[in-house]
């Protein structure tokens, strides 16, 4: 069965410092990987997906199949980046099931 691991429950960084939120997955096929973000008192929303290869709000994530990782990175953290971040895996383009990691709470210190 597929699994998503986010090893850090909480990550604190200073404003302007680089950020890396780790995500590792286990799945033998070709997964689709996503990052979802939940700001305080807001709904869970899609941040980015690996197949789009885009940068959203300065965040990027590259799928590394060799290391089975999909780490989320931003070169300079902003206070408004403070939120809960969830990595999620879908087992294929047509799959309905989204398997989430437990999430990492990012706190950006002013």
């Amino acid at each position, binding site marked *: 069965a597929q699994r998503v691991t986010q090893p850090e429950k909480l990550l604190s960084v200073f404003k302007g410092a680089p950020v890396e939120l780790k995500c590792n997955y286990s799945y033998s096929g070709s997964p689709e990987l996503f990052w*979802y973000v939940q700001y305080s008192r807001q*709904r869970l929303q899609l941040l980015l997906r690996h197949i789009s290869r885009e940068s959203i709000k300065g965040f990027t994530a590259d799928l590394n199949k060799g290391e089975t990782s999909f780490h989320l990175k931003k070169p300079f953290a902003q206070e408004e980046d403070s939120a809960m971040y*969830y990595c999620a895996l879908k087992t294929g*383009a047509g799959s309905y099931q989204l398997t*989430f990691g437990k999430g990492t709470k990012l706190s950006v210190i002013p």
Partner: protein
Amino acid sequence: DAMVIQNPRYQVTQFGKPVTLSCSQTLNHNVMYWYQQKSSQAPKLLFHYYDKDFNNEADTPDNFQSRRPNTSFCFLDIRSPGLGDAAMYLCATSRRQGASNQPQHFGDGTRLSIL
């Protein structure tokens, strides 16, 4: 704004008393999902509807049922809530086109408490 709306935001019920959570969407998506999220845990898929086709996850307890009377609405019924069912319940939608299922859009969730 097109969105996914969950009512109520907070629901309190008594142990064993049936409860229904509601979800509506204005996105006209053909797939709707219900997730359960307990404190400090990942959201866990309970079931989903593709149009009227209901799909239950293998480990979803029989206590949990769902109804989708039309495209816009989906309900989660908990027949006899136990203390272990206290959680945040998330509704989500997506558009399936052919063999591709687009990313999911989530509602704000309903936090269920059991007395």
